[in-house]
């Protein structure tokens, strides 16, 4: 009874991998590799005070020199990468795990409940990450853990917003109507249709939020409200080196470059992923 048509199933969408994505992935890859190396090897024992001169310029023995307290800078940079990644992962993890379900919930509940979620979200949005982290530090004292959680909470609204907007557009598509007409319940629609289709935007958002988290942590450590003295942190290194800027500029430049490197990496990765995952932006 049916008429077979000419079979020409074609058009597999081959997405061009863009330069931004590659550069971003390489920059982030270096940070990840650095952190991984520090797990098994560091040139010197972590945070050990050496019996050598302070303020050494980079040299053969101490690749990136030594600081005021005669510690090896390269070792600190390696360990700092770990802190940086840890902060990013925890902060983004907290934000995504809470923000994404909230966003989907807000999109799917049309009435007062969805309104309530978004209004609460807007109020949380009035507390920028740094401010929230300072509040947390005022109460609980400054530590890496407190900083991570505070930054994470402050990042929830951005995830919830992005997810909600994207989920709303997914919910307006005919394939969701088709699923409803097929008898699928709200949970199945959320899990089978909405989540997979908002995932790419959430990944992009995660990458950008990672960069913001790194910046916030560095600022907190610099203010003395994040990672405390004696623990490795790029922001902390900057703070300690500021007073000796004139005599030992490399102590500022090296952690500064490390921070900028990782922020740049995650921002580029986010931009690259946005172009890679969104066919609409192909011609940019």
């Amino acid at each position, binding site marked *: 009874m*049916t008429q077979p048509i000419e079979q020409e199933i074609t058009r597999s969408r081959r997405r061009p991998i863009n330069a931004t994505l590659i550069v971003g992935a390489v920059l982030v890859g270096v940070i990840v590799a650095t952190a991984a190396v520090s797990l098994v090897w560091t040139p010197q024992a972590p945070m050990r005070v050496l019996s050598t001169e302070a303020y050494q310029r980079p040299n053969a023995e101490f690749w990136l020199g030594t600081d005021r307290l005669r510690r090896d800078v390269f070792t600190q940079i390696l360990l700092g990468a770990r802190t940086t990644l840890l902060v990013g992962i925890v902060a983004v993890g907290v934000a995504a795990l809470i923000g994404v379900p909230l966003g989907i919930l807000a999109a799917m509940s049309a009435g007062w409940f969805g309104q309530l979620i978004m209004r609460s979200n807007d109020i949380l949005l009035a507390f920028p990450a740094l401010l929230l982290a300072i509040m947390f530090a005022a109460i609980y004292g400054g530590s890496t853990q407190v900083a991570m959680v505070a930054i994470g909470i402050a990042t929830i609204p951005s995830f919830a917003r992005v997810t909600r907007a994207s989920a709303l557009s997914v919910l307006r598509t005919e394939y969701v109507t088709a699923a409803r007409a097929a008898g699928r319940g709200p949970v199945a629609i959320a899990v089978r249709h909405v989540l997979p289709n908002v995932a790419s935007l959430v990944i992009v958002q995660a990458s950008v939020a990672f960069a913001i988290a790194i910046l916030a942590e560095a600022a907190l450590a610099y203010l003395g409200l994040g990672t405390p003295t004696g623990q490795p942190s790029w922001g902390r290194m900057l703070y300690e080196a500021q007073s000796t800027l004139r005599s030992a500029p490399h102590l500022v430049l090296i952690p500064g470059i490390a921070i900028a490197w990782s922020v740049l990496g995650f921002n580029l990765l986010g931009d690259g992923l946005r172009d890679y995952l969104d066919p609409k932006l192909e011609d940019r």
Partner: protein
Amino acid sequence: MPACTRWAPIPHPGMGHAMTEPILKLTDVRREFRRPRTSLRTPPPVVRAVNGVNLEVAPGERLGIVGESGSGKSTLLRLLSGLDQPTSGQIEVQGRRVDGQSSRQLKWLRETMQLVFQDPMSSLDPRMRVRDIIAEPLVAAGMSAAGKREERVVTLLQSVGLPKDAIDRYPHQFSGGQRQRISVARALAPQPKILVADEPVSALDVSVRAQVLNLIDNVVEGFDLTLIFVSHDLSVVRHVCDRVAVMRRGEFVEVAPTEELFADPQHAYTKQLIAAIPTLSAALGGRTAAALADEVNQQAGGENRD
């Protein structure tokens, strides 16, 4: 303008007995939407998207619903497929109520009535394989054995003229016409009695449109379905349907068997709609744009509609 009432269901040509139980019955169905308030003094405006629609459809009938943008045909379609609730009125499918039921209570409807949508790009989830798309109504209906589902999906693919190996592909790997075939296969999956098609060919190229119209014709015939076919295009509806309901501003202005409607339209709006269709034969016979517009204006009685 008075509505021309020829409400009684017309038994379609193939049916011997005159009156059967209607498979679909709408009684004074209304749906109002409240727009956001624009001023503190006046109450928020109310849009009557569907305004008192009555309809009976006999089993096996092919009914067309024709209307221009904003006529309320999409809202009506959402109502009768249980995706939206009427403000008032009754909707019955096979004698069972659709209105006022929760989606959980409507599981039976999902196995009785299925939909085919307008936009072949957005009606298939881009992140799902064809296998899962077509099987979705089966999963929802509780068919849990994956092997059985797969078997059914393969059969369905064949009956819409797609090869077996389409099963592992994603929607973007198909052309618009092929995607509408997948859509039809999904709709057929739970073995429905009623197929509701919402502008299924208006997004397609002319050369592909005929293929999909033929397919719909074939499955309605082959699976013994009742067809509700919604379109803005009277000539398509004329080709597909036995009976046509013309909708404007939330109301049916005229319901009549297709040929009767074309040969002798009663309502001025129907006349205007028919007059406005440009046809190749009329154009080649010398009907100019001015003549076309004149006819439309004549029927409208000078009422400017845009």
